[in-house]
């Protein structure tokens, strides 16, 4: 295994800003567009995504390198990753419910949504393709989660303003939202040359 030689701190910043999982890699768009109508839900979902991403990226790294590679079962990774993610989400849901019912009310409804959020599976697949080490994986998972959270909060705020503007009828809703995301992507990716991720 030849892990890329990347410092952890630049990797963290790159995964939050310049290689934002959402704006540069288009992952997690579905829930991003539908949830960002509302500020509070965006916050809840962002938090949940960050938590799940951090935990699953570590776990999937362990499963891939400790179980699948030694057994020569790499081709099963899609099924294994999605199962790990689904079970992880289930466990987190149960733990949060037991430990903090208050947090459960905020996060609970978003957790099932996360299983089918492309960002989670996407990060696990990127870890494997880019051959990150365990620590790099954890940092990349955390950074991607934070980046996703930041992006959804920003978009929720922008959408609040845009709704009041004079937008052509046919462009209302998804159309203008997608174009807004485009401008956000330009702003985020603008510094891409400074921080490499792979």
């Amino acid at each position, binding site marked *: 295994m030849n892990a890329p030689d990347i410092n952890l701190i630049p990797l963290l910043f790159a995964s939050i800003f310049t290689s934002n999982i959402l*704006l540069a890699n*288009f992952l997690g768009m579905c829930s991003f567009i539908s949830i960002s109508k509302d500020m509070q839900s965006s916050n809840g979902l962002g938090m949940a995504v960050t938590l799940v991403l951090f935990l699953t990226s570590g776990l999937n790294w362990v499963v891939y390198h400790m179980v699948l590679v030694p057994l020569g079962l790499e*081709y099963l990774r899609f099924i294994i990753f999605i*199962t790990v993610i689904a079970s992880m989400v289930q466990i987190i849901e149960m733990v949060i419910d037991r430990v903090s019912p208050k947090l459960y009310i905020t996060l609970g409804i978003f957790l099932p949504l996360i*299983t*089918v959020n492309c960002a*989670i599976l996407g990060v696990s*697949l990127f870890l494997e393709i880019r051959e990150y080490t365990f620590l790099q994986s954890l940092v990349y998972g955390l950074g991607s989660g934070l980046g996703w959270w930041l992006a959804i909060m920003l978009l929720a705020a922008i959408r609040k303003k845009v709704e009041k503007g004079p937008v052509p009828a046919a462009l209302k809703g998804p159309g203008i939202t*997608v174009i807004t995301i485009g401008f956000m992507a330009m702003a985020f990716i603008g510094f891409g040359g400074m921080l490499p991720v792979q």
Partner: protein
Amino acid sequence: MSSAPAPGAMLRDNLWTNNPIFMQILGICSALAVTNLLTNTMIMTIAVVGVMGMTNLTVSLIKSLIPRKVRMMVQTLIIASYVIVVDIILRAYLPDISRALGPYVGLIITNCIIMGRAEAFAQQNPPLLSVWDGVTSAFGYMGVLLAIALIRELLGFGSLFGYQVMPEIFEPWIIMVMPPSAFFVLGIVIWIGKAIMEREGAPA
């Protein structure tokens, strides 16, 4: 949806009035990333057509055997199995494209359109009709993605399917190769689509 939809009406519905991308903004996650080249988009969407048709067929065939509580998980695993098949085929026959698509082939699993159609249609309808629904929905998806890829490749590289079509003097637009343009082009395509629909008087 009525109990026995006519195949012809379904075709129109899935390709246009209820197009998964225009009307529901589903499944753009894994899709936008591959639209900077027509060839990649074509392969990717063909993979989606195959996975979607087979998933709908399988879900429809075994729908009475799946306990309601775990049906989401079962559907996901069915989709994942077909995606593995597609991935292996791509690696074997089209290794270059497989590398270019990278993780996005695997991400077909979490493509909301496939899950959405399996849940909304294949759960209640007979197998053949479900296959038809899956395939036509995927074609609707393919149409929009190809339109986006056409614009992006033409302006970004001056080529179509890798063949140079623009004259030498044409300066490629670098932005079209980069991620933000996918959002702009998609936004504009949605705008045009919806504007035409409104003129037709369809409920937008």
